[in-house]
């Protein structure tokens, strides 16, 4: 009977060891898969960077201008092409910054300064 018991025990231990190894190998495979995925993720990330750089390179204003000149034959946008809709309404905001409107007709008292006086003051200082 002892033989059978020992045999059974050996079998149980062997099978559980075998199972353990199998699980271990399975987990190892999964880990490898994760590593591969991480790798390809970072690779794709780098590729996206390359694409972004390329996109930005292709969209250089300099290049767009050359292409526009070639295919669109349009002039540069000019201030003459732009108008403010608000300009036509009464509520338009002139955005004056507290400037007193002197107008052209305002009388001005000119103050003439003699050169001699200026030079003398500078000398005396």
């Amino acid at each position: 009977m002892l033989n059978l018991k020992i045999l059974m025990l050996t079998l149980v231990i062997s099978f559980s060891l075998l199972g353990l190894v199998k699980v271990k190998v399975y987990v190892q495979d999964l880990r490898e898969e994760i590593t591969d995925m991480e790798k390809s993720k970072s690779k794709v990330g780098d590729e996206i960077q390359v694409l972004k750089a390329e996109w930005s390179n292709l969209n250089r204003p300099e290049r767009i201008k050359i292409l526009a000149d070639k295919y669109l034959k349009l002039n540069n946008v000019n201030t003459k092409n732009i108008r403010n809709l608000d300009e036509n309404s009464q509520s338009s905001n002139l955005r004056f910054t507290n400037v007193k409107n002197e107008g052209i007709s305002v009388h001005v008292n000119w103050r003439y300064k003699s050169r001699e006086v200026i030079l003398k003051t500078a000398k005396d200082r």
Partner: protein
Amino acid sequence: MGVFSYFKNFLDNIKFGFLENKKHVNLGRVYVVLVFFIFCYFIISLRLFDLTILKAIPDEQEFANSFVDKSSVNFDRGDIFDRNGELLAVNLITTSIYANPRVIENPKTIAKKLAKIFPNLEYKNLAEKLQSDKAFVWIKRNISPKEELIVNNEGIPGIYFRFGKRRAYPQGALFSHIVGYVGLDGDGLMGAESYFDKFLKSRHEDRKLQNLHLSLEVRAQSIVREELQKAVKEFRAKGAVGILQDITNGEVIAMVSLPDYDPNDISSATEHELFNKATLGNYEVGSVFKVFTMAAALDSGIVKLHDVYDVDTPLKSGGFYIKDFYGKKGWLSVPQILMYSSNIGIAQIALEIGKERQFQAIKSLGLLSETEIELPERAVPVFRDISRWSDTTSIAASYGYGISISPLHVSMATGAVANGGRLFTPTILKDADNEYKQVIKKSTSDKMRKLLRTVVRFGAGKAAVEGLYVGGKSGTANKPVNGVYSNHLRVSSFVSIFPSNDPKYVLYVMLDEPKSTKETFGFATGGWVAAPTTKNIIKRIATLFDIVPQIKQKEAIENSLFVQYNPKSISS
């Protein structure tokens, strides 16, 4: 002994069939073999236990590092963007090849092969490298995918690839002096790459925190560069500078220094190209400086808008005669002094306010110290200390001689003069909560805006753009050559603000050593060469920044900016 006897017992009970008839076999030997195998299994079980239970989870860090090339860590720099998120600098994957000379058996043949693949590598050099007793030598860094394929197909033993990263600048030369560049080892060597080196290299969980957002704008930068290039070509200038700055917060929107270089190909850049004239160049700016002298004079209260000065004859000072370029006889009002850029007039104004006041005003406008722009290339102004100022120094300074400053100084100080007297630190960072110093009175600033507008409206009309009410001042300075001012080498510039009724931007355009053309009637002064470029830039840029021409209220706006400037017409 217990174990042994147990096994003996166990074995005794097993019927060794094949030993049945061979009584003479020594069972002791069988035991020895048996014990040996049991021992082996025991060891294997222990190892199994160790691997499956104890070391089931590998070291996370080690795991994470297993596919990162440690040599390229330096290149994990943050990206650099313009104010709208356009890429200015980015890291790209590259391949480099290296060799392990210790495992290379016939270095000479391999060197020959490599020299054939890479024509710019010398055979002699390669052979020397491959014959050394090192375990690692670089063959070539950052090779092209095509070269990588060829080397791979050759399958040379002892030659390996290393994948790394390198910095790329998709905008090419456009931002060369602002963004700068990095060296082979990933250290920033110039511009923002150098100034923000630590920041760009800092490691964060979220990579976005490493990114740098500049205040500059790709389209504006491109327009400024394009127009400057045209001007450089037209006037055969040695170089040019264009700076566009938001005067409400000090942010630099565009900054170009020509000639520039392609940061993707640093090895072919010359020293002249690498030099950032806009922030590192020191120039005597000439009449542009009258803006600052005038602001100081008006701010002191000694000089009023309607003062009139005698400019009939040249002014004598310290053995020199101060003359006017466009000589006007008789008397000139304050606005006229700026309009006709009268040296005689501004010299008297400087003498009137006194050198102490003049010096202090220039100083408080930030013109006598380094700018605090976030670039390592910053000019230290060159000037004479106030203790050594004579009247002649004061006069020369009043129209921009004897003080050398960078173009950025000019745009910064003009911004302060025009925006209510607030001096902002110039910055290349977007949304940097910039602080300001009140350096002149708001009322002075209002007068200065009117004066600058008057200059463009009735004087330097070449910078005028309809509906944008550009204000500005030209400047032409002869360059000193071996201590003597040259008659034909000059720095011609134009500083402008727009729109004058509510200034948002300051633009400074400077041409280094422009030559006159037939179209400019032999003139190469700021008003002739820099003002038209200013106009072209403003015309194209205003629409980008939502500055809409105000045509309907033209009269109201012009009236609000008008100053009486002609004493003759009124008094006579």
